[in-house]
């Protein structure tokens, strides 16, 4: 066997294959590599950039409305609800569309696209655990979706606290920040994990996207429609947006249209999201890396 | 019948500005002929022209004396085994082959039986009732070959017929393809796996950038490559002394040593050189334990012909002044 490397002092340098002598990192933080790369790949898409930028506009409108209501309140005009509720209104009624679009673009197709292009072989023939893979993908989607939900929400919440009538009012409004964060996290998880669960079912990214849109919107229409017709609110618990709305209303103190206690929608949502997560992990464990 | 079945003259096919095939003139006789060439040389274009999937831009192309384009009756005499997977996953082997047999003009009542016979011949007797979706890659390949030969065509076009097959299946299929050639059909096999083409036939057509670079018997082609004279590799314990003995003779063009007991002689006069070597062994006491011609094979022909044409090859010939 010839010696591995030509002497580097020789006048002709050896440009062939050389060994690698540098550092090697432990695989504990490996998910960060996946996170960074998936985020970069997502960001490369024009639609993603446009969605994120456009999503910042409703916040302006809501801020103006909140400001006017606070001003009116200061002048002593009767305002029914606390203007701080506009944080919820912004997140649920405005940001939801942009956040869902982001989920459709980034979360829904990603796993099936990987299966199709043979990326599973790429990842799992390397020292990448299934959990690192999943965590990297979830986090990269979460950063984008949570930004859409949390940035406007937090800015509005901060504005509410800053424009409080007095110190006492400010203190009562402080929990608004924490509630916004909590709500955004729950919302984000709801927009990612069920989409991943669907992605594990089909190899066609297009079908997964269509299925996710159907799964999100159809039960909303049907569930609330039937619940209203039959006056049985429990039926609406099948719809993810309905659960999110009722949880948000309970959390932010918005007077609600139904009389179900807060633990119903919370339980239903956690059940659905929990099952989705379990399903994704199970499918990943069993996937055939190569045929 | 020794008349060529496939005749082409000045055949051209252009895709807009891109040349697929240019001025191709070749006659293909019965028997197995290998169709070779680097990627992009025009092999698939030629095959598609022969199958009637493309219309010639210019020139003449005739199979069995007729034009192929828009000639449906002629297609019943042509069998094609394509490179890509186009099989129907749900049909069983027999159904698939019988269906394509009927499309090629086999009467409906005979189609099933012929399909079964063909599948048996190709070693799929046990699997022919199973759906093709359950076949391994090698079995699928054999099913595709079956549909190409079930209607007993006169012209068979096989594009990489052995992909995905394991070594046992490869040997069996090579044997079957040779048999088909011996039956008098024209079998054109396009492949990159040169040692298998060599096992099937001595006749080849080598395409390069849309033109025919060589056409005919492998060994005759080899003899004609002037730039690379005939090489003889001699295994002898005392190779240096043997070289000294040989170098004096006119017929030796050059000598090279590879390891201690091998000397490689290049010669333009093999008929003079070989007896010289025999004399060395018998009259001059050299112990020769091996004699062979290392580049008298298809791999070498392919390499010499295509590399001599590449820009690097042309540059090199310029400096050494080799003749072709």
């Amino acid at each position, binding site marked *: 066997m010839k010696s591995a490397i030509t002497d580097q002092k020789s006048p002709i340098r050896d440009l062939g294959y050389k060994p690698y002598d540098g550092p090697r990192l432990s695989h504990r933080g490996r998910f960060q590599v996946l996170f960074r*790369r998936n985020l970069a790949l997502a960001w*490369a898409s024009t639609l993603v950039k446009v969605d994120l930028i456009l999503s910042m506009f409703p916040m302006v409108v809501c801020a103006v409305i909140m400001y006017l209501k606070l001003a009116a309140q200061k002048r002593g005009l009767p305002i029914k609800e606390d203007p701080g509720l506009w944080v919820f209104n912004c997140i649920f009624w405005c940001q939801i569309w942009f956040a869902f679009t982001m989920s459709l673009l980034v979360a829904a197709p990603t796993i099936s696209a990987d299966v199709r292009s043979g990326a599973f072989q790429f990842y799992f023939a390397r020292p990448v655990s299934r959990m690192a893979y999943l965590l990297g993908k979830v986090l990269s989607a979460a950063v984008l979706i949570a930004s859409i939900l949390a940035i406007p929400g937090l800015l509005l919440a901060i504005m509410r606290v800053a424009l409080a009538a007095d110190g006492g009012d400010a203190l009562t409004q402080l929990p608004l920040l924490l509630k916004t964060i909590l709500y955004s996290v729950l919302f984000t998880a709801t927009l990612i994990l069920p989409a991943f669960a669907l992605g594990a079912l089909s190899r066609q990214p297009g079908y997964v996207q269509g299925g996710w849109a159907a799964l999100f919107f159809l039960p909303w229409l049907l569930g609330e429609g039937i619940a209203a017709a039959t006056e049985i609110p429990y039926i609406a618990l099948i719809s993810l947006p309905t659960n999110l709305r009722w949880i948000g209303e309970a959390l932010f103190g918005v007077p609600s249209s139904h009389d179900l206690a807060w633990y119903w929608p919370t339980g239903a949502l956690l059940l659905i999201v929990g099952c989705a997560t379990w399903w994704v992990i199970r499918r990943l464990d069993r996937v055939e890396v190569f*045929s | 019948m020794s008349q060529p079945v496939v005749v082409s003259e000045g055949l051209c096919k252009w895709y807009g500005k891109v040349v697929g095939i240019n001025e191709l003139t070749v006659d293909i006789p019965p028997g197995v002929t290998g169709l*070779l060439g680097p990627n992009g040389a025009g092999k698939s274009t030629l095959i598609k022209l022969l199958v009637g999937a493309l219309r010639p831009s210019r020139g003449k192309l005739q199979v069995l004396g007729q034009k192929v384009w828009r000639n449906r009756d002629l297609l019943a005499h042509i069998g094609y085994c394509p490179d890509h997977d186009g099989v129907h996953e749900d049909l069983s082997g027999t159904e698939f082959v019988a269906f394509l047999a009927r499309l090629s003009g086999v009467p409906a009542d005979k189609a099933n039986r012929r399909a079964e016979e063909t599948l048996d011949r190709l070693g799929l007797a046990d699997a022919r009732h199973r759906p093709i979706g359950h076949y*391994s890659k090698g079995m699928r390949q054999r099913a595709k070959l079956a549909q190409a030969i079930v209607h007993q065509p006169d012209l068979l076009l096989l594009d990489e017929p052995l992909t995905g097959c394991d070594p*046992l299946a490869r040997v069996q299929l090579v044997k079957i393809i040779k048999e088909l050639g011996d039956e008098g059909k024209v079998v054109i096999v396009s492949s990159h796996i040169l040692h298998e083409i060599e096992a099937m036939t001595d006749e080849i057509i080598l395409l390069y950038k849309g033109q025919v670079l060589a056409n005919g018997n492998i060994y005759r082609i080899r003899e004609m490559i002037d730039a690379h004279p005939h090489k003889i590799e001699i295994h002898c314990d005392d190779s240096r002394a043997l070289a000294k003995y040989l170098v004096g003779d006119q017929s030796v063009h050059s000598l090279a040593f590879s390891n201690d007991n091998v000397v490689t002689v290049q010669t333009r006069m093999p008929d003079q050189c070989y007896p010289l070597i025999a004399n060395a062994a018998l009259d001059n006491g050299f112990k*020769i334990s091996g004699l062979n011609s290392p580049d008298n094979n298809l791999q070498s022909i392919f390499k010499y012909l295509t590399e001599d044409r590449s820009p690097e090859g042309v540059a090199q010939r310029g400096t050494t002044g080799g003749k072709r």
Partner: protein
Amino acid sequence: MSETANDNLLQLDGIGKFYGKVHALKEVTATLARGTVGLLGPNGAGKSTLLKILLGLLVPSTGRAQVIGFDAASRSLDLRQRIGYMPEQECHINGLDAVELCTYAAELCGLPYDGARARANSVLAYVGLGDKRHLKVETYSTGQKQRVKLAQALVHDPELLLLDEPTNGLDPRGRDEMLQLIRELPERRGCSVMLSSHLLPDVEAVCENALVLAEGSLLFSGPIEQLRGKNTRYYRVGVKESPEAFAIALRALGARADSAQGGLKVELPEDEDPDFIFRCARDNGFQLRHLELEQRSFEEAFLDLLEEKSAA
């Protein structure tokens, strides 16, 4: 379990794998030293199951596998850090170019970003994709895709390279270049190579040893030379003139001569050496052109092995 790499490439102890009722692998036991190995066998022999076990992606139902000193089942992440796998199918991520893909591959094996990027560039230059490395991998031709696959298997400097049909779809020149790249690696780097292929000449060109499976059982493990066997009295002979006529001349002198592909297979009479054949040729007016000690071709040896198995 020893942390240091021991000398053996593979140590398989009674490896078995069941998929439900299907017995994919049956009691495979073999030990192979570091070097080059060909993994061979008919379709359905259990090769991909074995590869998955060696990569630590599948836990065997019975037995233990040690690969380059690591137990495949319990140290699979450490093992995959040191193995490079070049798959048969498409294996890339849409939207990345070759440098990004190889950098990503290296990072996933633990290299820091800068080291990964430098390494990706030099490995891509080694496999011959220097010019095209900033184009998206989806746009590559088959040959280029094969080279990218090799590059991303090599980028983290593995001790063992697993290759699955590396010359698929390559034209003859591409095949020669790919085999040359692969052959150089054990010489330069001292890494081991395991090549799984149906093309026996490829395996012969690269590997010293072979591991042959059929229907889940191990048929042979060891040097290819051993599989071929040796002899000293059979020669393959070719003449310029008609082989049949020469055969007659040989038989007249007491040798055995039979037709074989490309010439004659000759058994020398007792106590004779190859000069016997030279003499016979010269005396009878034949021009001897080919003289070679008969060695069973690898293909023949392999097929004989399979036949013995199916007869048993």
